[in-house]
């Protein structure tokens, strides 16, 4: 990391892009105020943290009244758990715009702290929420974008001619090799889903059509906090939105079953232990909220910085941030 050499105090984003950010945030608030969705704030620091094996939390320490010996607080990676507690307490439709933090993520499309827009719609499933996401994004884009919706299965059929639900890891490795992904022979990935992630990021994303592309009904093993719809095969009622091939949003028809949620958390912790990752405390208050009863709802998180990249034609996330990691 560079030190304070000349000019490093200056913002990286141009004034035009900083103005575009302000307009985008105002546009988001206009949309939700018009739709009767309430803006909320929840803590950025929590005693509990996400368990997802692919997401790592940053931690900090609080000492003071109530914590004489200090206690670890985790910076949120998304405001999902406390927002669902608000929903369980009867908030109705809510949205939040906040800075979230993820350890280990830095690159052309990643900054370890970034702006997330997250919202929840009671009485919606993931398909109705996709309508909502499309309406919001279209309202924020400078020109209307074409829109496509395709299931995860159909997508893999279309781009790779394979069924992502049945092929074993060795076969997926072979597909990646045939698709020209370099160095797959020496690649040691922990599970089947990681191979699917490889195919998605290296083979499918670059070939996605321009405009909005919603991908829905993910493998049950990638459900995260989405409910699983039984069937053959069972699928998770989860979707992702890509804009011009860039992953922009992830949404769920939300899991409401507290016991199932606890099992998934524990399963995550087992995976984290196998991967040698830290084991954060489970969010017991979130689990209590589910036990008390979460109404049928769908929720989604959308990366504001990436949307801003597409709106302003930026090729690197640093170009839309006043002070990215290198100058933070």
């Amino acid at each position: 990391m560079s030190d304070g050499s000349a000019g490093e105090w200056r913002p990286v984003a141009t004034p035009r892009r900083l103005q575009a950010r302000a307009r985008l945030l105002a546009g988001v608030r206009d949309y939700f105020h018009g739709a009767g969705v309430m803006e909320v704030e929840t803590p950025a620091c929590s005693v509990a943290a996400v368990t997802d094996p692919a997401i790592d939390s940053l931690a900090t320490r609080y000492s003071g009244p109530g914590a004489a010996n200090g206690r670890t607080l985790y910076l949120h990676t998304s405001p999902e758990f406390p927002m669902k507690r608000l929903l369980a307490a009867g908030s109705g439709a809510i949205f939040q715009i906040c800075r979230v933090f993820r350890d280990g993520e830095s690159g052309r499309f990643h900054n370890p702290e970034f702006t997330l827009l997250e919202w929840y719609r009671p009485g919606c499933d993931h398909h109705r929420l996709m309508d909502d996401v499309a309406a919001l994004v279209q309202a924020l884009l400078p020109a209307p974008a074409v829109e496509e919706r395709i299931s995860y299965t159909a997508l893999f059929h279309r781009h790779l001619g394979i069924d992502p639900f049945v092929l074993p890891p060795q076969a997926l490795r072979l597909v990646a090799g045939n698709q020209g992904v370099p160095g797959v022979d020496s690649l040691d990935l922990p599970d089947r889903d990681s191979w699917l992630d490889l195919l998605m990021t290296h083979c499918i994303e670059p070939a996605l059509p321009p405009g909005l592309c919603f991908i829905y009904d993910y493998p049950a093993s990638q459900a995260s906090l989405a409910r699983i719809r039984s069937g053959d095969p069972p699928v998770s009622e989860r979707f992702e939105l890509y804009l011009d091939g860039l992953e922009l949003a992830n949404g769920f028809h939300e899991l409401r079953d507290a016991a199932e949620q606890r099992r998934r958390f524990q399963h995550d912790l087992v995976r984290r232990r196998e991967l040698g990752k830290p084991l954060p405390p489970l969010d017991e208050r979130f689990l209590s909220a589910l036990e008390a009863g979460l109404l049928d709802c769908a929720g989604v998180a959308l990366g504001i910085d990436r949307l801003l990249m597409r709106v302003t034609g930026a090729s690197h996330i640093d170009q839309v941030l006043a002070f990215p990691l290198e100058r933070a």
Partner: protein
Amino acid sequence: MASYSTNEFKGGLKIMQDGDPCSIIANEFVKPGKGQAFNRVKIRNLKTGRVIERTFKSGESVEAADVLEVELQYLYNDGEFWHFMDSESYEQYSADAKAVGETSKWLKDQASCTVTLWNGTPIIVEPPNFVTLSITETDPGLKGDTSGGGGKPATLETGAVVRVPLFIQSGETIKVDTRSGEYVSRAREE
């Protein structure tokens, strides 16, 4: 054995791949929001010069290549090896034809070369950007032609052949850009 984690990847880092030393040209972090992170890397094989791409699982470690670049003085060629010396430590190195390659045609005694060492052995020898060499043979040019247009081949003392303007004669000393293999000017008498 020294190794680098993918978090240390950046342009110029030297790593081992397929048993050969390589230099990283570009490194991209790729990660789905809820999935496996990868580093998509472009690397140059320092022995073959070939550029290849590789995909690594983020967090994985890769063997480091013991590679460094040094300035060495060219001494002589014994028919099989080209010999060089570090003018500070007086340590000597010998490079084979594979390492020297096309550079041999620019090598004159005392020339200062950039040599890439892998485990202490030269694998790439780069000549200075500009060399001053005398012409051993070229057709007599037309008198009075100073434009340089057209040109003619000239053989240099090291064996290299370059195009020179018609007014340049055998026995003259010229400056050549080794990157393009092109004549630059007459060498000034100093």
